[in-house]
């Protein structure tokens, strides 16, 4: 186990309590809204914030354990940190920013610089070696920050919202580059993000943090197919309902959902957005659920060539359809539609 931590910290009225485990070579995404404690968690792992309780173990070494009064300061932990606003040193060139870590670890100037140069090549910025941080675009600064963090070959790499400061166009491009660079990094990686797409695209596992507590952990598939709270469902774009089951009928608010299996009592229902079909007329067919509603929002998912349509009616549901379908049906906000779901597509599990 490369990272094994039980984190308990209290900062004023906020308290964070989370268990974090990451294997070597694994990328864990910590997903959560602002103020959920994501950055605090990273600061604890890096040694920038001491624990109040629990322990942090990195690469089989205990680096923080209040019970035994053990605390290893950040400079003696093998942890690289990519900060949200990069924090490149303004008085140093891109090259010397990257060489800073190797220099601090005792490398000679020439050796540190040659290491920095090869990393600049790796992130595709060898032409920017002498540029000062203020002369770099935010996408370039992000790559320099990443190169700086991995220059000392840390056992654990922490990335705090690495894509948050980028505009939409740079974002998907940089996400792709980040994925490539991260895939070459051998150690454990933890990436903090509030964007589920980052987490789904980049991570091996996702930990969902909300209000200082872990809501769910699992692979991207597990999280999207079995979100354990409405927040997670909303976040990963899955329809999650709560209802009361009586056989194959489940009462969800004013609507009734027909399922292929039989249940009783309080249940949670999951409907994948891509299982929702939109019609302009009431659909015919026996084992179907169909609800009438009005389109409240249309959102394009650039990475997956899909469009998310939010339909508000007796049941509020999100459908994921192709751009072609949107054109054919001339869907816009305010269009009256029928949202249909096969009974076999509704997943039910006890609440």
């Amino acid at each position: 186990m490369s990272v094994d931590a039980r984190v308990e910290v209290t900062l004023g009225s906020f308290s964070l309590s989370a268990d974090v485990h990451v294997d070597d070579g694994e990328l864990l995404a910590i997903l959560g809204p602002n103020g959920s404690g994501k950055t605090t968690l990273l600061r604890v792992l890096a040694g920038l914030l001491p624990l109040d309780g629990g322990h942090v173990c990195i690469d089989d070494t205990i680096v923080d354990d209040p019970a035994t009064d053990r605390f290893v300061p950040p400079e003696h932990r093998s942890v690289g940190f990519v900060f949200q606003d990069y924090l490149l040193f303004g008085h140093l060139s891109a090259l010397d920013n990257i060489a800073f870590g190797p220099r601090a670890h005792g490398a000679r100037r020439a050796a540190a610089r040659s290491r920095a140069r090869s990393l600049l090549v790796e992130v595709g910025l060898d032409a920017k070696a002498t540029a000062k941080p203020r002369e770099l675009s935010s996408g370039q600064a992000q790559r320099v920050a990443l190169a700086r963090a991995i220059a000392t070959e840390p056992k654990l790499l922490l990335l705090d919202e690495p894509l948050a400061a980028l505009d939409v166009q740079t974002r998907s491009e940089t996400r792709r580059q980040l994925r490539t660079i991260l895939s070459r990094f051998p150690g454990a990686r933890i990436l903090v993000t509030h964007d589920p797409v980052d987490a789904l695209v980049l991570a091996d596992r996702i930990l969902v943090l909300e209000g200082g507590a872990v809501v769910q952990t699992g692979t991207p598939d597990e999280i999207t197919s079995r979100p354990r709270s409405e927040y997670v469902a909303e976040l990963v774009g899955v329809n999650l309902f709560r209802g009361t089951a009586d056989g194959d009928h489940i009462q969800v608010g004013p609507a009734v959902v027909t399922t292929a299996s039989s249940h009783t009592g309080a249940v949670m229902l999951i409907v994948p957005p891509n299982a929702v079909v939109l019609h302009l007329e009431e659909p015919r067919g026996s084992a179907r659920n169909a609800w009438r509603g009005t389109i409240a929002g249309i959102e394009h998912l650039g990475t997956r060539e899909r469009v998310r349509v939010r339909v508000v009616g007796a049941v509020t549901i999100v459908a994921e359809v192709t751009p072609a379908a949107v054109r054919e049906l001339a869907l816009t906000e305010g269009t009256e539609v029928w949202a249909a779901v096969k009974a076999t597509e509704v997943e039910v599990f006890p609440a």
Partner: protein
Amino acid sequence: MTTRRRDPARERVPVIVIAGAVLAAAIFVVPLAGLLWRAPWTSAWSVVSSGESRTALRLSIETSIAATAIAVVLGVPLAWVQARVAYRGRGVVRALTLLPMVLPPVVGGIALLLALGKKGLVGQYLDHVGVHLPFHVSGAILAETFVAMPFLVLTVEGAFRTADRRFEEAARTLGASRFEVFRRVTLPMIRPSLIAGAVLCWARALGEFGATITFAGNLQGHTQTLPLFVYVKLEEGTIEPAIVLSLLLLAISLAVLISLRDRWLSAL
């Protein structure tokens, strides 16, 4: 009837404010004009190049630079502690370190004499080990340091206080020890303020008079700096050399302040 369009970026300044500003500027400009008006331009060069005044000028420059160097070496750590370490009595230490800015320099000189003079509080022990500060060039340097260092401490302390400490955290995650972080990240971050503080400190040391003459005396070639020399000339009733040397002091200070202004002193 047409109304004149105004540039909206140009604020309309009340007349009373303009009047005040003009008067304030006059307070600075008029005395300077007085010096320039009475300056004996024809004999200026011979005054400046006389042995006595050259010695005083050299001594002034040497002692003020030495005082600035001491102020930087000792004042930066003091500023760092004052900005970053919360300890009991910090407010008292701050007041005491800024005291020389309000204390009459002559009083400062007397205080130095009572503390470091031959029979002073600390001086009696220094005397045993053969260190004699009063009436010696080292005394002149110390007097200048005493009076000028607060300018450096004040400027640098403010910079330490406002510097973004997250850059220091970033450096520590990269493996830099606390001292390395200070040397390679914090100091470069506050460099503009450090230079500005050092220049202010140096300018104050260059013009120092009261503490120097009280503590270090007025020994030609040893402690008689340019301000002291000007004073001696005035006492002798020869006003022309005093004017020329004053202008020289002014010219040096102005040249340094102007040359550093664009690059370093924008904060001032």
